[in-house]
């Protein structure tokens, strides 16, 4: 019964707090980005204003299915986060996350716009780039704790970062793709609104675009949860340390975003796979030798 109560509280907290925290994070992100570019920047609450405005706009869709796919995208992102914060199975979480991304890609493909189609192709390439490292991350957790269950990982003996330093660096590397930050913001960039790097969202407007933005907030909080996982263990002060490190990692991503030029997709795939093959794989080999 105690476990059930925890799950209900965690899911409810994620459903309500994640969009608030995610929106605030996006606002702080835009402010810090502006400061790094020598500008004043928008109010911290600007992402919320944007989303509320999009809900006020007239609905224009290019076909009947597009909105349905985007709603599925949002729902599966939310389900991913719920599984994660309820302490569910890591493999299932990765599977639902992939499914959610596929819905976004199908929504973009469903229109005949060449911009949306190229954007969707780029999103697919990005998925190919980050998937190996995400899988290696899950396997790494299994090798250390002997379980894919997040609730057991968090209750484990020590922080995972001690055993998984290489996998952590590799994960932060592909986190740049997932957070849609330069140099890997090829399909749905935060900048370059007039460019092809915003191609994925070309055919979405009004409420549909607002749903994508909200899904992005949910996803960002879930990804920060993944970073948290590396630094969480049974010690009472470990959550404070882990949240602090999440903030540092996010700031690092903003810093990279503003200092790196965008790369071609070939380089994005190659370097992500190289990171997975070296940092991730070597870390796994070392674990094998320690464990057995």
């Amino acid at each position, binding site marked *: 019964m105690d476990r059930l109560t925890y799950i209900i509280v965690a899911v409810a907290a994620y459903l309500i707090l994640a969009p608030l925290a995610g929106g605030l994070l996006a606002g702080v992100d835009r402010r810090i980005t502006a400061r790094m570019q020598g*500008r004043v920047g*928008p*109010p911290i609450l600007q992402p919320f*204003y944007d989303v*509320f*405005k999009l809900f*006020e706009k007239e609905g224009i869709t290019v076909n009947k299915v597009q909105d349905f796919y985007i709603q599925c995208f949002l729902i599966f992102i939310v389900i991913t986060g719920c599984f994660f914060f309820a302490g569910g199975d890591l493999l299932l979480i990765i599977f639902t996350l992939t499914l959610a991304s596929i819905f976004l890609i199908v929504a973009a493909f469903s229109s005949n716009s060449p911009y949306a189609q190229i954007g969707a192709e780029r999103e697919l390439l990005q998925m190919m780039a980050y998937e190996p490292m995400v899988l290696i991350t899950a396997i790494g957790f299994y090798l250390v704790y002997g379980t894919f269950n997040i609730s057991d990982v968090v209750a484990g003996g020590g922080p995972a970062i001690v055993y998984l330093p290489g996998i952590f660096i590799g994960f932060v590397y592909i986190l740049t793709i997932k957070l849609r930050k330069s140099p890997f913001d090829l399909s749905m960039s935060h900048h370059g*609104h007039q460019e092809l790097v915003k191609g994925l969202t070309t055919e979405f407007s009004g409420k549909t*675009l607002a749903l994508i933005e909200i899904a992005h907030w949910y996803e960002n909080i879930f990804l920060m949860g993944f970073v948290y996982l590396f630094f969480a263990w049974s010690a009472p002060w470990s959550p404070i340390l882990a949240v602090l490190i999440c903030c540092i990692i996010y700031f690092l991503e903003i810093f990279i975003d503003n200092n790196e030029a965008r790369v071609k997709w070939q380089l994005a795939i190659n370097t992500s796979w190289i990171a997975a093959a070296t940092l991730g794989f070597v870390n796994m080999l070392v674990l094998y030798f320690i464990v057995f």
Partner: protein
Amino acid sequence: MMSYVTKSPWIIHYDGSSCNGCDIEVLACLTPMYDVERFGIINTGNPKHADIFLLTGSVNEQNIPVIKQIYEQMPEPKVVVAIGICATSGGIFAECYNVQGGSDKVVPVDVYVPGCAARPEAIIDGVVKGLGVLAEKRAAMVKK
């Protein structure tokens, strides 16, 4: 009821047959000097995301369908702001054989910002005037 449309106006900018003077001034608004993102303004470049249509330069025969299409692709509520004297009335090009005149010959213009070239301050002022119209249009939408 307050409308959020005035807090996050996203713009699309189209160059009719402008000499690029006004276009450079529009882009200057986005630079650290003027930084219109302070008001939540983003230059989207996508009519489906935009709330405010900034038009520069006079209208000629060839860009009439383009301007019409951009305007029609923008979701309601939307506002058109004509930037510079050419977009306002055709300016010194008004007599040219290929020029139709100001942008109001093609789409309904809500705010006129004259000038050659219009200064960034004047452009920002015009967009802020446009926000009032945007709020009115939103209120009319809610009534319907």
